[in-house]
């Protein structure tokens, strides 16, 4: 029996997440199939999903149009593993920004473009809770988590700002683990699943 990993694919760096899930599966000895989710009806079949980087304004609009937003909400609320990176994190947070129709399933408030524009984008090594070695993180016009709710654990900070969080089975990062060859966060997510289910 193989696992189905759905990467929300209405816009953003979708293929990078699919490759990362495949590599993480190989590392764990799991058979992982991946699918890009561009309309409704697929998320309910997925064991794990990822919301990629991209533009949160565009992604949230298309999710609503395609009726994928409710399916993601149900997936998260059912406690199924979810990885949300950058724009994905913004899409899941509490609605604060009128330009983004976010889902409000993650108890955090996120500030968009918190470091500035592309000129201020960067890569750096950061310590992540639960990983032995530092993670080489790529921040692209990245957001930061301004405040977290009671049930949210902070996984990583950079320069005093929260850049990775965990709430139940949802991991949210301000950076892009899918842009490097380090797939430990994807492994962390898959590792919680019993492959013989």
């Amino acid at each position, binding site marked *: 029996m193989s696992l189905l990993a759905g990467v929300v694919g209405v816009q953003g760096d979708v293929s990078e997440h699919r490759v990362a899930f495949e590599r993480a599966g190989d590392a764990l000895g799991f058979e992982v199939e991946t699918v890009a989710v561009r309309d409704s009806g697929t998320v309910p079949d997925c064991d794990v999903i990822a919301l990629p980087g991209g533009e949160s304004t565009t992604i949230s609009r298309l999710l609503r149009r395609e009726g994928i937003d409710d399916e993601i909400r149900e997936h998260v609320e059912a406690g199924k593993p979810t990885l949300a990176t*950058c724009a994905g994190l913004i899409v899941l947070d509490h609605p604060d920004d009128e330009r983004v129709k976010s889902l409000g399933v993650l108890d955090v408030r996120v500030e968009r473009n918190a470091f500035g524009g592309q000129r201020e984008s960067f890569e750096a090594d950061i310590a992540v809770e639960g990983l032995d070695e530092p993670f080489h993180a790529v921040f*692209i016009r990245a957001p930061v988590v301004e405040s977290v709710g009671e049930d949210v654990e902070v996984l990583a900070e950079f320069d005093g700002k929260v850049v990775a969080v965990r709430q139940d089975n949802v991991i949210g990062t301000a950076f892009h683990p899918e842009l490097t060859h380090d797939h430990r966060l994807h492994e962390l997510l898959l590792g919680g699943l019993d492959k013989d289910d």
Partner: protein
Amino acid sequence: MGDKEAGTDLESLKRGTELVKRGFASMQKGGVIMDVVNAEQARIAEDTGAVAVMALESVPADIRKRGGVARMAPVETNEEILDEVSIPAMGKVRIGHEAEARILESIGMDMIDESEVLTPADEWNHIDKRDFETPFVCGARDLGEALRRIDEGAAMIRTKGEAGTGDVAEAVRHQKAIKGAIRELEGMNTEERRNYAREIEAPLPLVEEAAELGRLPVVNFAAGGIATPADAALMMRLGCDGIFVGSGIFGAEDPESMGRAIVEAVNSYDDPDELKEISKNVGGGMKGRSKDSLSEEEQLQYRGN
């Protein structure tokens, strides 16, 4: 995560690397980048779902009508548009005009388009884009041109098409030329690839990389003449990663409806029933003119090498 560790983190910080520049381009995939000439249009573009806006003094169709030398848009125009939106704002510079590019970088534009739509400043040389922290996008008509631009540091390639015409034919031709050449490469041995690299005047390592990947090594958008949701869907079917729309949005009768429809068409490009619904009630597209009605001199795609 004490202070000591935070200090170490900051020391490892690097900006403007290839990874950071190409990473930015990857975030645009599956999206529509719209030409805008002022803050009001930029706001409309963001509201219709654009992933980024491209700041211009006037859209390509108007540049054509006006004639004369077309240059980088005024600093004020770039700044006004950058300040208006929360999505990325890009700007255009003339081919080979490093000083215009330095100005856009200083303004903080998120990406620079070294564009044949403007009058070239250097007949022979394109900008050395590796020397910038800001990522660049460049146009290409074929694989050789695309790989030369990547070699110079472009983080994204777009078809040149024939801008400002509303005629998608040239964009189709350029995308098919790029894909076709890569398919040819895939069937070649090392020796043949070396000869091919010489023939198309592209560096061998990039030729090898394209052959291994079965695609360009950077994000590949469509541009030039895209005017309807169906045009956008066509280019996505040809393997493009996303779409630039120039005069097609604000040259249309109803820019908001057209913008929204093109954004939706890029996501639903392979679903004919949905495309049919999306294509309803968008109003008339830009008037346009067939590229065959232009002399070779009037065509912008032959600018640059």
